[in-house]
């Protein structure tokens, strides 16, 4: 043989390398583009549109345990959110926690009892400058044109970088198969699989049908949803006339879920007359 071993290995090695690149490139290029000329993809006619969807949670209107339960169940039932009954594997899109945990650093020893113990409704803040989107290495988490921070569960690799990055604990990872932990699956909505991260989607699938988010619908007016960039929207009207706070606004993620505190009227001087 005229070729010595080294030379053979070199040629073999480089041709394998080139072939790999070739196959890879061929595969990427052959992925479907516009493969059916005449077909089109459109938005639904009913789709509710906005520049930045936002929510106001009016704590004054959430009174009984039943009020809270309705809101949370509405979301978790239609979205097939599993219930594992243990905090380690827990998955939640919308949940409750007290003031000191929802707004750490804002609490004081002497705040009204009612505020100290009354649970706040927490969910993804659909931040305008979301760190979860910034860190995601695959664009599985991304910002939609209408301001919703969306999850592409087909693309998520489960690296959980977004969970480290979200300052609001809004994200849940599927540590276990969620299917067995869903009591009555909603046949119209998918479940998730092991190893992906999920969270509230501001009910984008309902917005596409012209419906308000499920939690808003179930809240008896305590949760208000609307376009924060529209000065005439209901959320803007509420924000203009009420003192509202946001979770950890100092971090600059620009959350768009606002809270109206339930301050007992008796402690506000002249309280009754100020609504």
């Amino acid at each position: 043989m005229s070729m010595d071993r080294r030379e053979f290995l070199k040629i073999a090695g480089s041709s394998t390398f080139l072939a790999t690149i070739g196959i890879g490139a061929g595969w990427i290029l052959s992925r479907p583009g516009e493969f059916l000329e005449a077909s089109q993809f459109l938005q639904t006619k009913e789709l509710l549109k906005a520049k930045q969807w936002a929510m106001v949670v009016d704590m004054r209107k959430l009174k009984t345990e039943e009020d809270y339960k309705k809101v949370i169940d509405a979301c978790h039932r239609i979205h097939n959110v599993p219930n594992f009954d243990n905090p380690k594997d827990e998955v939640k899109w919308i949940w409750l926690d007290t003031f000191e945990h929802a707004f750490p650093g804002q609490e004081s020893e002497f705040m009204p009892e009612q505020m100290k113990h009354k649970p706040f409704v927490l969910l993804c803040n659909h931040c305008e400058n979301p760190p979860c989107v910034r860190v995601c290495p695959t664009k599985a988490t991304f910002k939609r044109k209408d301001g919703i921070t969306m999850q592409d569960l087909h693309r998520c690799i489960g690296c959980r970088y977004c969970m480290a990055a979200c300052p609001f604990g809004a994200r849940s990872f599927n540590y276990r198969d969620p299917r067995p932990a869903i009591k009555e699956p909603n046949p119209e909505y998918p479940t998730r699989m092991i190893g992906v991260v999920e969270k509230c989607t501001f009910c984008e699938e309902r917005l596409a049908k012209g419906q308000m988010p499920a939690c808003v619908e179930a809240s008896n007016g305590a949760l208000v949803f609307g376009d924060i960039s529209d000065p005439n929207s209901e959320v803007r009207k509420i924000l203009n006339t009420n003192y509202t706070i946001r979770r950890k606004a100092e971090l600059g993620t620009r959350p768009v879920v606002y809270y109206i505190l339930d301050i007992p009227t008796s402690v506000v001087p002249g309280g009754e007359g100020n609504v």
Partner: protein
Amino acid sequence: MFEKALVGSKRYWTWVIVLLAVIGIGFITYLQQFKLGLGITGLSRDVSWGLYIGQFTFLVGVAASAVMLVIPYYLHDFKKFGKIVILGEFLAVSAVTMCILFIFVDMGQPMRIMNVILHPTPNSIMFWDSVVLGGYLGLNIIIGWATLHADKKGTRPAAWVKPLIYLSIPWAISIHTVTAFLYAGLPGRHFWLSAIMAARFLASAFAGGPALLIILALIVRKFTKFDPGKEAIQAIGKIVTYAMIANVFFLLLEIFTAAYSSIPGHTHPFKYLYFGLEGHARLVPLMWASSILAIVSIVLLVFPSIRKNESMLALACIALFVSLWIDKGFGLIIGGFVPNMFEKVTEYWPTLPETIITISVWAVGFLILTILYKVAVSVREETAGIELEH
């Protein structure tokens, strides 16, 4: 050259088979994790990164530390590192491989790993981390192999290797800087949100990596005819000393800022790690062990008279390595998650399957290291008589 790895003493083969057995057990355990999900680890909604990512972080440092031999040897012509530099480069290869494996076993959907390349996302630090790690692995394989090849023939490495070697220096710094940026840019994780993160990472890397290298060099000398050189080992000892002191200094800076400002977000993780928070104190003994070992290692290292004694040096290096392993491979990650975003404490402890998988990834690293060192040592043993003319 590779055939050198296929002939060896009984001891060599026993070691290889032991490693393979450990890898096998780990692989079976991983299949279990693959099927059931990461629920079989100790990770939770609150502490979503743990042992795996900690090992990854620690090993990036080990990989980067090869530069501590490359700089003196190639930039300052420090000839005494002539024989040992290859050990550093091959250690880097094995460490980066372990890094990649740890990322892989940590992923929820590992089969989709190509998504990082199919949908490149320059705003994600993790994207850049995979780019620099991949590049560094390639660089070290090429450089190590080319220099070894040259050694075998008793010549200098080919001219094209030099630029790659120079490139590998800033590249090594970059892998650990980018890894620090993974953590240091996250709003709301006060423990990590610190400008000194990257510097601290590099300092601990330049202490821990070379310390491991000293231990390895001593082992190699004990079991083979290859002698990396007494003076080379002593010189690395000095590097380890300075780097470790810098590392402890940086840690103290962090502690000062947290303690003196006494801002809750900054103090709580330290309190949790060193004293326990709200009655949760699982990591306290470990963190104190790390501190004590750090002090012991520094005491043994700073006095030249003690350091000159090779068994004391080995002892110091082991203490230092364990100390840094606890601090960076464990405490640093967990501290970022405790307390959680709601100022509540959820503790983390690795489970048995998680530990087995971790050990077996280390076994893969050791297997690669063993094979590469075997090749290097065999080549060097053959050419032992020939003086290297670099």
